[in-house]
């Protein structure tokens, strides 16, 4: 087992919320007077354990609380969690940009961090100048940059615009140049925030490829924040899951990611109103419940593209002897309809009606979806259109491939697809 290269011990970060500025001078003087002159205890930075678990009062927020981990040389760690979970705060502490309120991080070797694309870039200056300025800021040496200059330019593909001010670059060119500089850093520890969220898929592929190369061939330690579980799964062997500033799980990526996804997905998959007045609906139809049931082998698993889904819903029909048809419209997050299926028409009496629709596994591509339900009478007359009943995410799943670029298309069916040798050239000749 290799040596520990970063050791975080109980790091916490407290932020003061609300308006800073007006009155803060007065507050600061009062604080100073009470803590330094009157020797009262500072209520916010006591180091004993009497601090309440949650924020002490509503003006303060623990962005991180007692986060500890050990990272060994050559490991690639993913950091996952929702927005506001403390991921960026953690990266900023590790990059020495901000100080923890409590706790200590120890480590060895040189750290470079990419918290944004184009650190230190000056809009007025040429690409050439910016390669140097950004390289130096990220901790490169003059000789490193000189030696790698051509490589950087090649990687970025902006050779002919090298002497043009970067403000005239297209955003794509800008990002490519910026990442090209970053990709040629050679630190012992590389910290990467979600910089890959920018750029087209071709470029993202290049970036992830470069990161993989750095980690496998050069044995560098990498810490990587991403919302793309696919990228985390492929790049990182270990992961930390942060929630509200605390470590929820930490360890093997597959376990952590899978726990994270299932915990996140579970909340969203059921809506129930009972027979209440405020349930969605109208005089004809009143919703009772909608539920999405994934057919998982292990109930703790998360939904991925292989998972068959069942939509179950119940509603109260207020029309007697109604000839009803129900349809399910499935949309992508951006609102494009993927399919519209409906049941066979049938005659129903007043009372509770149940419906069920099965969506097979290996059909939808990964992504975020929602569906709507439509209730119609006598084939064409709409009684009620229940828009956006439930949202759900399909996570990616891949085997036998090393590619981690977003799979194209809305659907990803598993049609039979074969190649065979029709004619053996060697045998003919």
């Amino acid at each position: 087992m290799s040596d520990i290269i970063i050791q975080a011990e109980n790091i916490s970060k407290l932020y003061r919320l609300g308006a800073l500025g007006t009155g803060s001078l007065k507050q600061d003087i009062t604080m100073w007077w009470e803590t330094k002159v009157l020797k009262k205890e500072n209520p916010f930075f006591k180091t004993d354990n009497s601090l309440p678990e949650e924020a002490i009062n509503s003006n303060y927020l623990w962005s991180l609380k007692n986060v500890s981990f050990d990272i060994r040389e050559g490991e690639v760690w993913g950091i996952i969690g929702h927005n506001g979970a403390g991921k960026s705060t953690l990266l900023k502490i590790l990059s020495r940009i901000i100080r923890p309120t409590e706790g200590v991080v120890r480590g060895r070797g040189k750290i470079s961090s990419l918290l944004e694309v184009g650190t230190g870039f000056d809009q007025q200056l040429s690409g050439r100048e910016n390669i140097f300025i950004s390289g130096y800021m990220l901790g490169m040496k003059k000789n490193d940059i000189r030696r790698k200059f051509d490589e950087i330019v090649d990687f970025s593909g902006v050779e002919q615009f090298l002497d043009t001010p970067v403000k005239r670059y297209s955003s794509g060119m800008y990002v490519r140049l910026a990442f090209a500089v970053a990709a040629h850093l050679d630190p012992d520890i590389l910290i990467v925030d979600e910089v890959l969220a920018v750029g087209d898929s071709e470029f993202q592929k290049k970036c992830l490829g470069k990161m993989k190369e750095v980690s496998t061939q050069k044995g560098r330690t990498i810490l990587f924040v991403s919302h793309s579980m696919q990228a985390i799964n492929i790049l990182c062997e270990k992961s930390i899951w942060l929630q509200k500033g605390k470590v929820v799980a930490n360890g093997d990526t597959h376990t952590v990611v899978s726990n994270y996804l299932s915990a996140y997905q579970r909340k969203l998959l059921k809506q129930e109103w009972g027979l209440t007045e405020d349930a969605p609906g109208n005089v004809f139809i009143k919703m009772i419940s909608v539920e999405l049931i994934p057919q998982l082998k292990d109930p703790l698993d998360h939904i991925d593209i292989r998972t068959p889904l069942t939509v179950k819903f119940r509603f109260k029909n207020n029309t007697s002897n109604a000839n009803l048809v129900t349809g399910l419209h499935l949309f992508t997050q951006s609102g494009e309809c993927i399919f519209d299926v409906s049941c066979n028409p049938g005659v129903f009496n007043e009372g509770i009606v149940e419906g069920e629709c099965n969506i097979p596994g290996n059909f939808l591509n990964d992504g975020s979806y929602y569906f709507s339900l439509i209730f119609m009478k006598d084939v064409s007359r709409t009684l009620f259109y229940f828009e956006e009943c439930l949202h759900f995410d399909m996570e990616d799943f891949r085997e036998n491939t090393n590619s981690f670029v977003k799979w194209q298309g809305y659907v990803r069916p598993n049609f039979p697809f074969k190649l065979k040798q029709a004619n053996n050239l060697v045998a003919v000749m």
Partner: protein
Amino acid sequence: MTEKQVHWDWEIKSQTTWLGASWKELYSFKDLLFRLVRKDFLASYQQTLLGPFWAVLQPILTVLIYVLVFNKVMSVSTQGIPPFLYYLIGITLWNLFSDIFQYTSITFTANAYIFSKVYFPRIITPLAVMLLHGIRFLIQLLLLIGVLLYYYFTGEVELLPVNALLAIPTVIITAGIGLGSGLIFSIITAKYRDLQNMIQLIIRLLMFVCPIFYSTAMVPAKIKWIVLLNPLSSQFEMFRYAFIGIGETSLLPFLYSTLFMIALVGSGVLLFNKMGDKLIDVI
């Protein structure tokens, strides 16, 4: 912890140190320092009509205005020296101080977007500002020498090359006072942004307390203490003495200014290091 690590290269904790980055670390960022100077120099002349020529044009225009106001309108004596030269000497040194002070005092507010994204010893930034304005000063010094030679050839002033050496400590002390006070103010303005407005006021006020358009000798005895208290005053007198051989120079005010500069730079650097890393949370 499963094992005890014997040696760590670095440690990040809540306490910040007065001394900041080690010399070794600072030295490893020297390339960045010079690049920043170059960047600021290039960037300030991008898309301009006259480019670096402004470094010369700006003091010429300023001095012309002061000649008009103080000499033509108010008739302040310039001790028999052509007013253009007299004011140019003062303005050249004044620009060095005021530029360094003004631009280092906004270190945090002006660089917040960089400081919140990448780490390097923060002190690099004000040092780069000082070097940049040092270079501008040298350009202006060339102008000053040109003007001086012109008046020498027209026979209006005499040249005293030995005295000129006195300009060297003057420049160092003036730049040091600018940097030291700029560092201290950079901490203050980072936390209380509105105090940035004060900087302009302070600079304008200081300008009239410095003997730029007058000499210390002309100040009435009753309020002379104000001018003497100002550590920059003796520097202006000395700077003038270095070029045209007139001005009050004596050891005591010089020592006062030197000590003042050392104390200011020392406390500025310490405060900057101690507070700088904490300020990223509030800027």
